[in-house]
């Protein structure tokens, strides 16, 4: 308990205290400036989009890795973990080199909101894949065979047999991806170009710190925290309901 307090709760309490140090009104005016609002909107919408894409594509990739044999499978396994292994700023450097103004592949995403989504997709790729994969390996193939023999289509089999088993893993992977996207800084820093329209909340927080507006920075950080908590709780509810309804 003491360990948990030191590690998590005391810093969180410090941030909350800082954010509230000018009272409710100070907190509200700090997070409702146009710049803070725009940053927050961009962060939340991009993160939700990225989480949704991850939920689907991550499951598909996990499925392919578990069920199919193909040449270069080992390589794909390694490549998927790469975003995990890279320091985010290195990921940012990779992205701007590949998709920046002097792109060798002719795709210039510098300073666009698409670049933000792209960077977030890049760093969150492993989450769903890696949480779903082991669960999928444990799915009973005989139950699927039985369903097929009872004339269930492939999709029905997937929905009734496989999906209920892997749903908790998909949800927790998606939640991880979302939380990571909300707080991502290094990988979006360079490719965003630092323009107003591509400023995510973590960058906005850093900017406020540069301007010595610590209360504004802490207030925005608190909102990020709250949004993450709400979304994680909602996902948890969805998952329970999904498991209950089978």
């Amino acid at each position: 308990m003491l360990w948990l307090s030191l590690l998590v709760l005391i810093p969180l309490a410090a941030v909350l205290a800082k954010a509230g140090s000018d009272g409710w009104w100070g907190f509200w005016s700090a997070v409702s400036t146009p710049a803070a609002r725009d940053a927050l909107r961009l962060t939340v919408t991009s993160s939700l989009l990225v989480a949704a894409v991850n939920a689907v594509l991550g499951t598909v990739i996990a499925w392919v890795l578990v069920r199919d044999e193909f040449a270069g499978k080992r390589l794909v396994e390694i490549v998927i973990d790469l975003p995990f292994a890279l320091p985010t700023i290195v990921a940012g450097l990779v992205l701007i080199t590949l998709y920046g103004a002097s792109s060798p592949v002719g795709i210039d995403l510098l300073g666009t909101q698409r670049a933000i989504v792209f960077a977030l997709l890049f760093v969150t790729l492993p989450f769903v894949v890696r949480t779903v994969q082991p669960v999928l390996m444990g799915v009973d193939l005989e139950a699927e065979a039985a369903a097929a023999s009872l004339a269930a289509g492939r999709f029905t089999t997937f929905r009734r047999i496989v999906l209920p088993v892997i749903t908790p893993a998909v949800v927790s992977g998606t939640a991880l991806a979302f939380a990571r996207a909300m707080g991502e800084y290094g990988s979006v820093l360079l490719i965003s170009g630092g323009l107003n329209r591509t400023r995510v909340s973590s960058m906005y927080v850093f900017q406020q710190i540069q301007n010595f507006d610590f209360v504004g920075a802490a207030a925005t950080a608190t909102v990020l925290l709250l949004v993450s908590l709400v979304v994680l709780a909602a996902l948890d509810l969805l998952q329970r309901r999904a498991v209950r309804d089978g």
Partner: protein
Amino acid sequence: MFTPPSHRARAVVALALATASVLAGCRSSGVGRAHTVAIVAYSVPKPAYDALTSAFAKTGAGNGASFSASYGASGSQSKAVANGQAADYVAFSLEPDLTRLVPNTVAADWNRGPTKGMVSDSVVVIVVRTGNPKHIEGWADLIKPGVRIVTPDPASSGSAKWNILAAYTQALAGGGSASEASAYLTEFYRHTVSRPASGAEATATFDSGTGDALISYENEAISARQKGADVDYVVPDATFLIENPAAVTKDASQTAKDFLAYALSTAGQQTFAANGLRPVVAGVDPGTVKGANNPSEPFPEVGKLTTIADLGGWSKVNEEFFGADGIVTKIAAEVG
């Protein structure tokens, strides 16, 4: 949940505080000649100060003087000193970072001298790729189709304000109205592909291949070329005068005061010049400056040089341009 600190932890904290206060006490009682001068400065002139301190130690006044130095972003350094970081000599990129320390740390008469508290000057320049492939000769060329600008963000870097003020005031220098200048700046912002958080970051971004033009300072461009960077730079016909202040703190030793005097002496100003900064003292021969466009004529006369004083001083400029409803703030929000 939360466990109260033990008595032992309290004792340790108390002991640490006591030690710190004793050390702080020692600091202010300078021991004559052996006094260490603490320099707190923005990072750009570090090479100049390295050269200045070693040259000063060889002079009569600086005999036996030792220095400790801390460099960082101008605003952060200023804030650190305001919050109690020990400093005898402070140097910043722009005046508001120094006035923040008046009257608590720096005496109110810091800017009464002949140079008004400034130790070095520079001008805003346009850094381009070697050979200037986009033929950028001045401000008008920056807003031609296909030209991509990199400039640091004035919202997070105080020094970046120089660049934006230069882009705005050059339009006035040509006889334009305020609305024409705003229109130019809007176009300038539309052509900006990257606004990194600091000047150093902007240089790194430009170096890595982003953009066709980097808005920077003459001393930055010269120092980059001294380090072998593959860039050229253009001093526009109309640009902005950058003035860097420095001062000694109120409880600074005589050694620190002598050091400031040395920085303003002919030899000191020549050291700044060798590092690409323009002298603030009239009549100082900058000598040959490696890395300048023309090393034997390193600091060309600018046709129309606008200063902060022309705009009514920093507090007026900060309000009018960079405040919540400022000209630049509005344009940045509009362009995105």
